[in-house]
C-alpha cells in the first residue's frame, strides 16, 4: 500500500471513529446523568448491564472506536513531537491498540457477564 493511500485510509478511520465516539460519549454521559439521580451503586449498574445484549453491543462499539481512534492520534503526536516515524512506531501503536482492546473488553465483559 502506498503511503498516500495508507495515510488517506488512516485519516478516514480517524474521522469515522471520531463520529462514532461523539455518539457514544453522548449516550454514555446521558446515561450517567440519568443513572446517578437516585445515587450510584454497583448493584444498580450491574442490574442495567448484566445480560443486556444492547449495552454489550454499545460498549463494544465504544471500545472499538477508541481502539481505532487513539493509536492514530498518538501516531501523529509521536511523529510531530518526538520526530518518531517509521515501522517501529506503527508496531508499538498496534501493540498499544491490542492493550486498549483487551483492557476495554475486559471491562465490558466484567459488567455484562
Amino acid at each position, binding site marked *: 500500500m*502506498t*503511503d*498516500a*493511500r495508507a*495515510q*488517506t*485510509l*488512516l*485519516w*478516514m478511520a480517524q474521522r469515522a471513529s471520531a463520529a462514532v465516539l461523539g455518539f457514544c460519549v453522548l449516550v454514555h454521559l446521558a446515561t450517567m446523568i440519568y443513572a446517578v439521580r437516585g445515587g450510584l451503586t454497583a448493584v444498580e449498574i450491574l442490574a442495567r448491564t448484566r445480560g443486556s445484549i444492547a449495552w454489550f453491543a454499545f460498549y463494544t462499539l465504544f471500545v472499538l472506536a477508541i481502539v481505532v481512534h487513539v493509536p492514530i492520534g498518538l501516531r*501523529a503526536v509521536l*511523529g*510531530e*513531537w518526538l520526530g518518531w*516515524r517509521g515501522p517501529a512506531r506503527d508496531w508499538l501503536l498496534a501493540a498499544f491498540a491490542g492493550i486498549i482492546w483487551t483492557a476495554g473488553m475486559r471491562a465490558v465483559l466484567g459488567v455484562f457477564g
Partner: protein
Amino acid sequence: MKVSVKRSSGFQGFEVPRHPSQTVLDVVTYIQRVLDPTLAYRFACRVGMCGSCAMTVNGRARWTCRTHVDSVLGKNSEMVIAPLRNLPVIRDLVTDMREFFDKWAKAKGSFQGRRTRREDFALISSEDKNRKEIDRGIECIGCAVCYSSCDVVAWNPDYLGPAALNRAWTLVKDERESGNAERLRAVAGDAGCHSCHTHMSCTEHCPKQISPTSAIAGLKRETALSLFDRNS
C-alpha cells in the same frame, strides 16, 4: 521608537524616528540606509504585490510593506523584527525560499492541460461552482506568510505547507487539468494534506485573506473520494 532586529549574530537594538503612516518596511529601510548598511533584508514592490518583504514582526508573520508601525506598536513599546519562521536564514532578515517553492513542485503545482493549440479555448462560466472555488485561492502571491505561521511545518519539515496545498487545490478544481490523479497522490501522505490539524494559522495570517485551511479540507475530501475511483 526602539527596534530590535534579529541579525545573524543575535538581536541588535536600534533607535528609529517615528513618522505618520510609517510602515515596518520603512523602519527596516531606515536602519539599513542610515544606521547600519550591513543589514540584509529583501523587498521589491513596496505595495503588497510581490510578497518578498514578509518578516516576523512582534511574533507574527506579516508583509512589512503593508504593515503600519501604528498597527503593531503601542505607546512606548518596542518593535521586534525577525526573519520568517520555518525557513533557513541566509543572512539577517533574508530567508532561503527554495524549500518553500520546491514544495509547490512536489505538490504538482504546475498546470497540465489536455488540449492542444489547435483546439478551441475551454469555455468556463465565471458562475461555475469549481471556478468560484478556484477564485477563492488563486490570488496567492507566494509570500510564505502562511508557511511561516504553520505549526505543522515546524513539527514536520517535510510537510508541504498551506501555500503549496492551496495551489494544488486550485488545480484539482480546474476542469482543464489532466494531472489530478497524480496530484492527489502527491498531496496525500505524511507530508501532505492529512497532516493538517486545522489550526487555521495560515488562514488567520494570510495577507490576501485566502483560506488554505479550506483548500486543504477540500484536498482531504478529494483524496478520500479518489480511493473509490477506479480510474485514479
